[in-house]
């Protein structure tokens, strides 16, 4: 049926955005607006395909993708926290740089351009028992679950706990909220920020791995298709709260999944693509206006 299809598609399309958004959200709670999530997703996808083909194991591939993303994120963070680079411009630069490097490696190591198709790429396994597909409405979505989607949603519901209850979670929030206070309390704000950026890289890398290994098993330069920016939009819209952000991601995933239906309804695809960004703009305006009101009425 159509409903279960839409649910399944929304869920699948949500996962990469969701993973990147979870990373970006922690990063922003730590005080860094990361607009280079896209670059880290791309790096993750690239590494995932290579490692999966080399080892034939999806788990190692996914892990390597995450580590690669984290590494890129960490280096990026150093530029911001140690060399005081402006995070926005450096982020834009990183997007260009990573694309350049990957293109370069594709060219010189794999002698191809744009697409990397390797033999024996192992995809993410679908592990649910067969009978679930018989469950009405959600059966299809369930039967298509793979580990990363499950992990992403586990993260959504554990992240609030981790942020609230672990030392590092507290440090991240304190650093983002009041760096001078964190410093006075003996916490190295820079290290915490570096951690949060590496964390964002880790999750973006996972998002990239999902894009590459969920079903298609190959790498393409355009694979991320700006999803890093959609993730950014999601956690801005979700005000850095994991569950809200996840719902926004789900909404964006749903928009993607129903895009084809909206096209049938006569909406041009280009305009449909702007909906997430327009939503964020509207959300920003409402938040700004409310803030303004609150200040104006302050007793």
């Amino acid at each position, binding site marked *: 049926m159509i409903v279960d299809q839409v649910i399944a598609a929304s869920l699948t399309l949500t996962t990469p955005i969701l993973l990147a958004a979870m990373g970006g959200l922690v990063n922003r709670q730590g005080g860094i607006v990361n607009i280079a999530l896209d670059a880290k997703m791309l790096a993750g996808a690239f590494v995932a395909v290579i490692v999966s083909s080399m080892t034939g194991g999806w788990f190692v591939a996914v892990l390597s993708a995450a580590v690669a993303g984290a590494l890129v994120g960490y280096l990026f963070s150093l530029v911001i926290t140690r060399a005081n680079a402006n995070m926005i411009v450096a982020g834009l*630069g990183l997007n260009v740089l990573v694309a350049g490097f990957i293109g370069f490696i594709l060219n010189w190591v794999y002698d191809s351009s744009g697409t990397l198709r390797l033999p024996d790429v192992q995809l993410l396994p679908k592990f649910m028992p067969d009978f679930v597909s018989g469950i009405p409405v959600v059966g299809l979505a369930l039967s298509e679950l793979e580990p990363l989607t499950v992990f992403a949603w586990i993260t959504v519901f554990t992240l609030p706990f981790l942020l609230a209850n672990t030392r590092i979670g507290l440090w991240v929030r304190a650093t983002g909220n009041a760096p001078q206070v964190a410093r006075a309390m003996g916490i190295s704000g820079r290290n915490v920020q570096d951690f949060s950026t590496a964390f964002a890289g880790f999750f973006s890398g996972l998002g990239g791995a999902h894009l590459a290994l969920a079903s298609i098993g190959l790498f393409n330069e355009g694979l991320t298709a700006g999803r890093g920016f959609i993730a950014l939009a999601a956690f801005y819209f979700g005000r850095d709260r994991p569950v809200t952000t996840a719902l926004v991601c789900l909404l964006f995933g749903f928009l993607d999944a129903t895009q084809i239906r909206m096209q049938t309804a006569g909406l041009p695809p280009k305009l449909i693509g702007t909906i997430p960004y327009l939503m964020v703009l509207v959300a*920003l305006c409402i938040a700004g206006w409310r803030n303004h009101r609150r200040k104006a009425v302050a007793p």
Partner: protein
Amino acid sequence: MAEAASIGRSPLMDWFDKGIGLAFPFIVALVVAAVVLLAIGENPLDVFALMFAESFGTQRRIAATLSAATPLLFTGVATAICFRSGVFNVGVEGALVIGGLCAAFIGFTLPAALGLTLIPLAFGFAALVSAIWLLVPGFLLARYEVDEVVSTLMLNFVAFGITGYLVNGPLLSEISGNNVTPLVHEAAQLPRLMPPSTLHTGFLIGVLVVILYGVWARRTPSGFEAALVGQNKRFSSAVGISIPATIILVMVLSGVISGLGGASHALGQLHRFADGFSPGYGFTGMAVALLGRNNAIGIFLGAVLFGALASAGTTVQLFSDIPLDIVNIIEGTVMIFAVVELGRISLKRWRARR
């Protein structure tokens, strides 16, 4: 962003400082590129020599470089005008694309009989629409403190969506194999400066914009006020400068210049609007502005350097096996290191020690 509200603060040291600021990121980028080139067994010096020859070797190549630099003159200034006032506008790209579409629209819809008046009309319309485009986030920032980085970033994507839709729908050329508008009337096309090179009058307009920007920044009260706001908001409002008015002014100016840049590119280079109108001139413009430390001469040099990279980066492929990715690597590295303060910090320290 520390270009002092310096009405003429220009002893030798200052120039030295700026020179380092401009050169440092490029040196880092060249080192990175050299490492990559060595890794693939190319001699970096040969490659750099070839790239230099391809960008400045002959008159024609210089013209090609300047032609590639033309849009960056506009986007560099449009960005610098905001950065200088402490407004982090990353929406120049979107405004440029919108402006380009508007100019092309005027250029092919109005009757050709209007002749040369088409050009000012197209430029004017582009400037107007782009100014309104950036006025929106400017207003939101000035009045409601809506974070301009995110609002302008989001607006870029909206601009891509709208122009992408229009150029495929209502404004699509009747018969074409691609998403392009019809060609603008011949009268609306900017004449070329050094035929056969594609260098066109838009370059002169761009240079004029840079000069006007320099004059505005250093020789007018409003440029002075904007710089003060960028340096110290509390001070500025204490001496009677309106912060919201300044923010709105610089955003509108930025929009106007982005629009002019789009018009120049549409009427001078492509003679229409098309998919792939801008490969990110607005974003490169940010690097240009930062590299040039928001200073007019710095912006000009920065734009030329990036123009050289773009023009040489493609044509070297004719004569060597260097892939385009090297250019991306250089460009990305320059962008990142343009904003790194290492060079400046150590220079300041060194100066403080003396």
